[in-house]
């Protein structure tokens, strides 16, 4: 009894304070405080009772009924049966404006009966501030609030084609959900953190907070310094500046499933292995073939991933499924190896894969699956010494080699094994020699026609310079470097002289003989005149030792003779010639190595000597040619006469002999 009294006292003292703010409210309460007050709405009887106690405690408790229900005339009560819907925008115009353009708002506009209104989330008279733990919009309650409509099995979820499934379940397992539910972190991300509270838009909408272009900004509300620690994937400020060229957060961190670590505690490997250690475990693919699902634990134990658990990679498991791994899809290596996978998607391999070309490799083609070994492990297929044959698997060995359009044809691997790089690797066992990936990159290989390719003519020099740095330095100062020469003609890159796959020792005879061809491709005239002089002539007869272009002009450090640093400058030319001609002197180096007797203006001495000699030659041959031509018929005639004469003489003699004898 005392308790009842105490409560009555409490009610008496507090109620008038709570809703004794205005006389109007008291007048409203006169009717609406009656729990039996009802009205007819769409054929149904609904309660018109207002919990004034809750209202008083609500965020609007101080506002009074007619602040919202403005169409009520307190002087003319009772009011009309139906009042206007409360227009929240009178105060909350910004939130309502956003709501109206949102997915929820437009559904409401279209008259969809499941579409939420303000009240669906915030309540009506009992609206509590979002900071109030009891509020439906309190951070820890938001997943449940949104889940009312968006969890599996709700009507909304069935009617609306949302691409993301198991949103709530996934969220609960994600790092964000984990933070919220298991660690009580109220600063973790909930639905509204990413989707916003009122401005919810589909991700295709450019204005949406989860549109590709905006997602980074959205995530950065919390992960503000993420760019600084994500330097491997993105380059500083790239996210804002070139949103289309770098992966966005959700490319690697799947929405709703964002996780950093696998929850091994909740999902131990032993659980996977109850099934997957069975050698006979297999599944039937849509095309009828069987695929073994057996996993050799030993493989994983000896791989680079030995510290990881199954679900570190096979993330798409869910307790809701049976078995939990059903349709878990391919492993997303990008979750950890984002940089490499990003490169791969850019690469020709990735492009082909995206086009659906079955021949194109994926991560496992080269790295293997459970038994992934590091590239320094001699057993790994990507170990330097194994690499050429790995690439050759597709690029040469197959019946239908993948790359059959390249200039090198299908013999890239054969050529490589004969090249200096290949010999270094395969014969001398040098791991520092260049393999396929050193030039083409491991994950981002692109055809040489692509400007981004490491083997694009513009990039070749810097690609080679990763090892041959000193050469690059020399080359960059030479006349062939784009740094020195501006021309619209093609400047040579490394591979114009040193063939890509069949690159050979430069002191080898074969290479030395090729130099002339290589330089001659562009320097036609001087090469022709080179062949008019001694060095060229002897070279054409196969002499490897004789001076080739590079012996005099230099190889990577070619400079015009007018440059004092040139091998052929006045200061250096004698020394240069001395490499082969130890007694070179100032007069000796005056030998014209590119002279031609056809150029009267440039080489008058040679020109006139040549024509003098030619005239002499023609003179002599004309004279004696004519002499012979005249002589021949005469000589034939004489010869016939001689034979006839001798026959006559012989006959006469024989006759004489006969008379002698007789």
């Amino acid at each position, binding site marked *: 009894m005392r308790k009842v009294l105490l409560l009555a006292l409490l009610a008496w003292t507090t109620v008038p304070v709570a809703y004794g703010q205005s006389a109007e409210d008291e007048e409203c309460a006169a009717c609406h405080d009656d729990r039996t007050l009802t009205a007819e709405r769409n054929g149904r009887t609904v309660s018109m009772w207002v919990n004034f106690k809750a209202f008083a405690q609500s965020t609007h408790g101080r506002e009074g009924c007619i602040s919202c229900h403005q169409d009520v005339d307190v002087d003319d009560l009772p009011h009309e049966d139906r009042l206007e819907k409360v227009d929240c925008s009178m105060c909350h115009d910004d939130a309502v404006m956003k709501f109206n353009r949102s997915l929820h708002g437009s559904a409401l506009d279209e008259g969809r009966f499941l579409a939420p209104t303000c009240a669906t989330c915030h309540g009506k008279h009992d609206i509590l501030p979002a900071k109030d733990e009891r509020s439906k919009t309190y951070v820890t309650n938001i997943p449940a609030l949104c889940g009312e409509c968006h969890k599996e099995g709700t009507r909304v979820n069935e009617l609306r084609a949302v691409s993301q499934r198991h949103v709530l379940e996934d969220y609960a397992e994600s790092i964000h959900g984990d933070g919220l539910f298991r660690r009580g972190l109220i600063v973790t991300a909930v639905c509204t953190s990413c989707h916003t509270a009122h401005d919810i838009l589909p991700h295709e909408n450019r204005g949406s907070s989860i549109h590709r272009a905006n997602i980074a900004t959205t995530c950065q509300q919390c992960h503000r310094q993420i760019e600084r620690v994500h330097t491997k994937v993105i380059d500083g400020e790239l996210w804002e500046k070139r949103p289309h060229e770098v992966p966005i957060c959700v490319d690697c961190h799947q929405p709703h499933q964002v996780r950093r670590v696998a929850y091994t505690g909740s999902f131990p490997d032993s659980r996977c292995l109850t099934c997957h250690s069975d050698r006979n475990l297999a599944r039937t693919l849509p095309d009828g073939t069987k695929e073994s699902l057996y996993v050799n634990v030993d493989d994983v134990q000896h791989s680079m991933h030995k510290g990881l658990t199954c679900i570190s990679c096979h993330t798409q498991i869910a307790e809701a499924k049976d078995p939990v791994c059903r349709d878990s899809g391919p492993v997303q290596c990008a979750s950890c190896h984002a940089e490499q996978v990003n490169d791969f998607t850019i690469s020709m391999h990735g492009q082909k894969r995206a086009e659906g070309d079955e021949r194109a490799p994926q991560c496992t083609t080269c790295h293997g699956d459970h038994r992934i070994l590091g590239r320094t492990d001699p057993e790994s297929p990507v170990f330097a010494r194994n690499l050429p044959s790995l690439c050759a698997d597709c690029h040469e060995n197959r019946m239908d080699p993948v790359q059959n359009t390249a200039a090198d044809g299908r013999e890239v691997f054969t050529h490589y094994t004969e090249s200096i790089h290949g010999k270094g690797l395969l014969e001398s066992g040098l791991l520092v020699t260049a393999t396929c990936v050193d030039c083409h990159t491991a994950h981002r290989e692109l055809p040489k026609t692509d400007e981004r390719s490491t083997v694009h003519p513009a990039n070749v020099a810097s690609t080679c310079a990763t090892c041959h740095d000193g050469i690059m330095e020399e080359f960059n100062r030479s006349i062939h470097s784009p740094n020195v020469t501006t021309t619209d003609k093609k400047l040579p890159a490394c591979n114009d002289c040193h063939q890509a796959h069949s690159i050979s020792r430069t002191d080898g005879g074969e290479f030395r003989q090729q130099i002339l061809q290589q330089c001659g491709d562009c320097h036609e005239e001087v090469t022709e005149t080179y*062949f*008019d*002089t*001694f060095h*060229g*002539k*002897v070279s*054409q*007869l*196969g*002499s490897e030792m*004789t001076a080739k272009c590079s012996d005099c002009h230099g190889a990577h450090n070619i400079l015009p003779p007018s440059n004092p640093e040139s091998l052929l400058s006045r200061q250096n030319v004698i020394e240069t010639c001395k490499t082969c*001609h*130890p*007694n*070179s*002197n100032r*007069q*000796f*180096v*005056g*030998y*014209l190595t590119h*002279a031609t*007797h*056809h150029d009267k203006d440039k*080489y008058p*001495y*040679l020109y006139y*000597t*040549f024509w003098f*000699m*030619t005239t*002499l*030659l023609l003179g*002599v*041959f004309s004279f*004696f*040619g004519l*002499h*012979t031509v*005249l*002589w*021949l018929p*005469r*000589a*034939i005639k*004489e*010869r016939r006469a*001689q034979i006839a004469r*001798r026959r006559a*003489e*012989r006959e*006469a*003699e*024989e006759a004489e*002999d*006969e008379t*002698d*004898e007789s």
Partner: protein
Amino acid sequence: MTTDTDPTMPAAAQPAVEAGPTPAPRKKSARTPRKKLYYQRFDGYSRFLHLLVIISFLSLAVTGMTIKFSGVGAFQTLSRWLGGYEVTGFVHRVAAVITFLYFFLHVYYVQRRMRRAKMKFSELLKGENTLLPQKHDVTEFVQTVKWFLGLGPRPDYGRWTYWEKFDYLAVFWGVLVIGLSGLVLWFPETFTAMGIPGWMVNVATIIHSDEALLATGFIFTVHFFNTHFRPDRFPMDPVIFTGSVEVEELKEDRPRLYEALVKSGELEKGLVEAPHPLLEKWARAFGMTALTIGLITVVMIIYSMIFLYR
């Protein structure tokens, strides 16, 4: 053809032969041909020198042309067959040394013969026996052209016809010009150190190469025809190897020399035994080989000049 098959001795040769001390041709039955008479035209020394000339000249020509026409596939192949540039270069230099050798041997020979005959140098430059052009060469040339055209008889050639003199002097001139320019190319550093400008090496190249072209072209066509391929000698005249010429042939070919020899009595002094059949066989074999090499070379040169050389 004239030296080996004619079984009879022309009657016209008889008086001269009978005058000689050597066994006079005995009259025999028609079945045993009369012995032919031979006159020694070249001594062993000269024949040996010509052998050196042939060997060195062919070597020089073939190895040299591989460089001159190094852009032509056929010569590149030839160079490969010969062992490559290093080998041909070595052969060329050895042959060059032989050339200088025979040049000096010949000069020594001329000087020795002059001394023995107590000739003055001025006598070397004129007369019947000189190899320098004389007034009668011009006359002979005019007569020869007339003869070619059927406007006169064959001239009575003396010891040396004008084309033989040209052959001889061409070699003399050629060895000097090609030899000197060749030395410059062989030792360019030495010559330039002596003050010859570098471009002179280029000039030497042109001179060496074109003079060589002239020499080879001339020898392998004009000399070959004049001496060997002309109808009355075809396919070759082995006299430079055997040394002796049949008297009858000498009389027909060089009547003026014949008369002079008869008049001075030199002919009898120069009569020799017919060349040994084996010598003649080898002479012909060697001669034909040399001629063939020369002909092939000249065909290759002409082919290169016409189709491929710039």
